[in-house]
């Protein structure tokens, strides 16, 4: 159990939780506040990450420009997707969005020349050349370390990611309390009632998708910077499901429940790694991985049973669903 106390490890867990916070905030906006059943959320994380990496490696653009462009691209594609799909009934919308995320993953896998294919971003500069997009980021990270007198890269990353995550959470919190946010919530509750009161539901849904996708794209950027390498397999639907779990775990319809949900989720996920007591000790490490996921699945089902409103949700609101 020596790694249990390792600061580096928990800093890493914290970073991942921070990335997931940003990612899941987008979903909270789309579903928790607007009622859009987006199951393709991970596609926009991929779009953000790939756009930045491709721009940096293939066109030599500075990361500081590529990053905002990547976020805008995610938002734009979110709007494009929404234009054709947002009028669909919610269960259809759900399926179409999964389909979309799988299409993105397929394109990323097969368009080698554009995305590096299955080998991922190492391949972006073409065969035989290992490419890196992370140069500028690493310099920035060192600068942060210097300014804050932190010894470890992971802790520096932790600070940056959480600064952004908390800023986004605060921003979402403020936005939802405006009349704009009120319209979104009314769409979640009853679109037809919102329409009958003069709200252009279509346009608001598109805005929700745009911001939600931008958040996912931002999460993609941090994912890319943290791991300095990624491939299409990293953006599987499983990540969207994790985001769903975080949003529901934390509590639907509350901005601040997302960081809480992400942290709890991260701790559970990482913490089960250290279960080396019985019955875990009976299995070898490969099997232990499966067992951990079974435990996580049981935790999720248990939560649904005993605390369906999530950690910060309100039971009376849940009942009205």
């Amino acid at each position, binding site marked *: 159990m020596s790694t249990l106390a390792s600061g580096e490890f928990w800093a890493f867990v914290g970073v991942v939780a921070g990335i997931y916070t940003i990612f899941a905030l987008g979903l909270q906006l789309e579903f928790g506040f607007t009622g859009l059943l987006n199951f393709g959320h991970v596609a926009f994380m991929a779009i953000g990450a790939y756009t930045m990496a491709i721009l940096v490696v293939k066109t030599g653009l500075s990361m500081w420009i590529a990053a905002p462009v990547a976020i805008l691209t995610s938002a734009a594609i979110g709007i494009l997707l929404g234009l054709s799909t947002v009028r669909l009934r919610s*269960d259809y919308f759900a399926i179409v969005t999964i*389909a979309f995320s*799988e299409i993105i993953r397929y394109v990323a896998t097969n368009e080698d020349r554009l995305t590096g294919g299955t080998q991922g971003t190492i391949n972006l500069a073409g065969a035989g050349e290992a490419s890196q997009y992370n140069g500028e980021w690493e310099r920035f990270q060192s600068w942060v370390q210097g300014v804050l007198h932190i010894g470890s890269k992971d802790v520096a990353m932790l600070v940056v990611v959480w600064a952004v995550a908390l800023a986004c959470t605060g921003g979402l919190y403020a936005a939802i309390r405006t009349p704009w946010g009120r319209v979104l919530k009314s769409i979640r509750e009853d679109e037809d009632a919102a329409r009958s009161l003069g709200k252009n539901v279509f346009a608001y849904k598109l805005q929700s998708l745009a911001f939600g996708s931008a958040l996912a794209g931002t999460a993609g950027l941090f994912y890319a910077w943290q791991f300095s390498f990624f491939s299409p397999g990293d953006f599987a639907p499983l990540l969207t499901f994790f985001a769903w779990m975080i949003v529901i775990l934390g509590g639907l319809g509350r901005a601040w429940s997302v960081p809480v949900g992400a942290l709890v989720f991260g701790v559970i996920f990482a913490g089960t790694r250290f279960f080396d007591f019985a019955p875990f000790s009976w299995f070898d490490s490969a099997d232990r991985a499966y067992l951990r996921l079974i435990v996580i699945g049981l935790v999720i089902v248990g939560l*649904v*049973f005993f605390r369906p409103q999530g950690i910060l949700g309100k039971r009376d609101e849940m009942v009205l669903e």
Partner: protein
Amino acid sequence: MFLQLLVNGLVTGSVFAIAAVGVSLIYGILRLVNFAYGDVMAYGACMAFLFNVTLGLQMVLSTALAMVATAVLSVTLELVLWRPLRARGAGFMSLFLASIGLALILRQMLLLVAGPQSRAYDVNPYKVYVIGSVRLSGSQAIAIAVAVVAIVLVGVLLSSTSLGRTMRAVADDRALAAVAGVDTGRVIVLTWIVSGLLAGLAGVLAALVQSTFDPNFGFALLLPVFAAVVLGGIGSPYGALLGGFVLGVVTELSTWGGFFGGVNSVYKPVVAFAILIGVLLVRPQGLLGRARVV
């Protein structure tokens, strides 16, 4: 070539169709989008392996036993998970989340017990039927034949038996059916049995047609199956059947050279999704679904 692709499409389509009906029946009666369905199919395939290879039983018998095992699993889950959740007033979100958790548990248990390696059934891989310009492997021929029988049986069940009528009544309006004296609990269990049998069958057929399979293959199947249900129109089991076949046939045919040089066969799932999106844009309720009324 075209005919060969058409036949291949019918084979894939059969698997989709059977699975899609199973999904549709449960959705119709419980409004539950069962994300665990793919892994239940994988469970069926693995059970058939257990009977066929480990225990040495003949393939047809193994399939039947696997279907029974899957039905038992489905009913158990209903009694242990779904029914108690419904009793607690679980809404759509909770049920959906529970099905994700369940999918995770099922798949990891299969991996734990069986391991991630690919396996194949004990069938003759070299048997080929040649009809005109079309070659059918033994597995493919079985898949089509079985699918046709299964579909006919399901169709008869739904339209002509009192159980079928009751299932449709409960799907239409559960509260009303209960008031009318229908034992909704019993109907729900029976629906899970039918859905479980179909899941098991679809899983085995999919594994047969693929030649080799591993416990992870359930999810890859789940998406086209859901797409088939939506394509056919949510709430219509016949739509699910149609959607399954359309999806299977069109995706295979899309690789035909005569169609603008053919789509790269790696992109077949993309074609499936593109079809789905295309149809929904023109007909938002799906092929056989009912239009929305305010």
